């Protein structure tokens, strides 16, 4: 791997490409219930845009709000959580949907690949049955035979041998399970695929493979891909756009190539500088980021990165910087 910045090739637009963005998120805020009637704010206004055939990586450290964003998009926030802001899929607002409408939408219009391939499959069902589920739920095949055929086709597309179809999850390796999960997510041919850390539980060699698989599938189908990751170095070159999240706020967003060439936000710079480099020589020190991610509810009034920021001024800790030109920072203006 070299440090050269090579943006991912633009993906072919899908057949139903239209003028409205596939996904449009504005001012997404999420509060989680805490003991004694208190509320912890997990997201402080997140804006995202994603088109068909486009891939966007949402990058941040653990606890920055990546998974909360994904769950909010899927309408699967934990029981009791509160949400405000706008989420639009193809121009259709999602926050007003009822349970039935959500069920018709989930899986069919947008699907999700979960983080842990070990636990995201039902241990009591063979793989094939689990790939068939979304096809049956959304009645995309006339009968069981057709459903089966379609599921077998999907397994083949993700690179699973047909003899794996009858296997139970515990009989498969981590990589095979992840492939099965991807097949399940793609089963109802969604327009938007959300992949929450799809490679974290895998070996380093498999990660690259799995990302490549996801991307080729997304490209073939003209889907939008929202890739959630804590690994900037792994994902940055494989997506077209990057959004950097910290403490429940967006720090910076823009085309991946541009962002890596000229990271403007001190947090993006620090994150990029902290990546390990292959062939850098053993005397080359790593550049870890000093300090740690603030816990939920521990962020001050201002920019959540202020306590760790080398450029921080007094006002950074007092008032959150406005989101301006794909950047939220007091010190590094657009």
């Amino acid at each position, binding site marked *: 791997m070299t440090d050269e910045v090579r943006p991912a090739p633009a993906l072919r637009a899908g057949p139903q490409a239209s003028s409205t963005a596939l996904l449009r998120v504005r001012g997404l805020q999420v509060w989680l219930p805490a003991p004694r009637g208190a509320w912890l704010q997990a997201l402080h206004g997140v804006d995202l845009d994603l088109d068909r055939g486009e891939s966007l990586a949402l990058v941040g450290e653990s606890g920055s709000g990546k998974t909360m964003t994904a769950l909010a998009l*899927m309408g*699967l926030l934990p*029981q009791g959580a509160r949400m405000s802001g706008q989420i639009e899929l193809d121009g259709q607002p999602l926050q007003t949907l009822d*349970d*039935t409408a959500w*069920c*018709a*939408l*989930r*899986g*069919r219009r947008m*699907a*999700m690949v*979960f*983080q*842990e391939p070990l*636990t*995201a*499959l*039902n*241990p*009591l069902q063979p793989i094939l049955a689990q790939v068939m*589920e*979304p096809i049956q*739920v*959304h009645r995309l095949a006339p009968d069981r035979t057709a459903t089966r055929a379609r599921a077998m086709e999907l397994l083949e597309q993700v690179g699973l041998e047909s003899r794996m179809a009858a296997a139970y999850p515990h009989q498969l390796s981590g990589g095979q399970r992840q492939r099965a*999960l991807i097949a*399940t*997510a793609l*089963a*109802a041919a969604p327009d938007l695929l959300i992949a929450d850390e799809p490679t974290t539980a895998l070996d380093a060699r498999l990660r690259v493979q799995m990302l490549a698989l996801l991307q080729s599938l997304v490209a073939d189908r003209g889907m939008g891909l929202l890739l959630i990751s804590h690994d900037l170095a792994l994902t940055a070159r494989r997506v077209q756009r990057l959004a950097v999240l910290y403490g429940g706020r967006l720090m910076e967003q823009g085309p991946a190539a541009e962002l890596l060439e000229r990271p403007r936000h001190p947090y993006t710079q620090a994150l990029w500088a902290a990546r390990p480099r292959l062939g850098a020589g053993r005397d080359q020190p790593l550049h870890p980021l000093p300090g740690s991610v603030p816990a939920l509810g521990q962020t001050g009034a201002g920019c959540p990165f202020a306590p760790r920021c080398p450029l921080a001024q007094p006002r950074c800790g007092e008032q959150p910087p406005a989101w301006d030109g794909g950047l939220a920072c007091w010190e590094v203006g657009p």
Partner: protein
Amino acid sequence: MSRLRLAAGLVITGLMLAVALLSLVWTPFPPDAIDMTQRLAGPGSTHWLGCDHLGRDTLSRLMVGARSAWLVGLVAVGLGLIGGTALGLLAAATRGAVETVILRASDLGFAFPALLLAIVLAAALGPGMLIAIAAIGLHAIPSFARLVNGSAKSWWARDFVQASRAAGQSRWAITLTHILPQLMPLLIVQGTTQFALAILAEAGLSYLGLGTQPPQASWGRLLAEAQTLMFEAPQLAMAPGIAITVAVLGLNLLGDGLRDWLDPKEQAR
């Protein structure tokens, strides 16, 4: 050791079922046939376990009692299991107010003594085996509901259930396809244990005159009839007493054995 328990439980319960089934087609004597010449006869070659105060064959009545025990156990546990599981699953799937109502109602059910429930039912509808079955079954509902609710909630938190939700599956379909199958081992074990409790409860209710009515035979009924003759013919009380003890022991062994056998964590030890 757990294999031994399972085997012993299977043998005893199987034997009890075989006797109950056999009593449908054959008993040594008709269970209600009165023969005053054999009144309080001791165990012998014609009447293996002797006769009661009306000269009825004890072995035949014991066999019919096994049938009553199975009937009560199956129907009452079936009622409790189906009702309790449905309520528990409903509470886990909906959460919120529905769950609170179901769980608080279960608490109320726990607080209400089974015996009082049986007395109320018997007072309102007249005593009988059906009343005993209804009382035992109704009383089993809260314990099944709470058990199922707790376990179902822990399964709801699993990733694969969330993944199924993300695939667009409705709560009810998830409950049936992903939650219920995981609960099967639990339900089998709990059902077996409740079966033993139901047999004990039926014996108790019949003994008090709230359950099976004469001339129908059940183990509790046999005990009640033998009570007054304790010193003249102790074998009359011993036969049903031993039958109840062995049946309950067998069912508990079966329940324990099944629990160990169905739980992969136990097996690994």
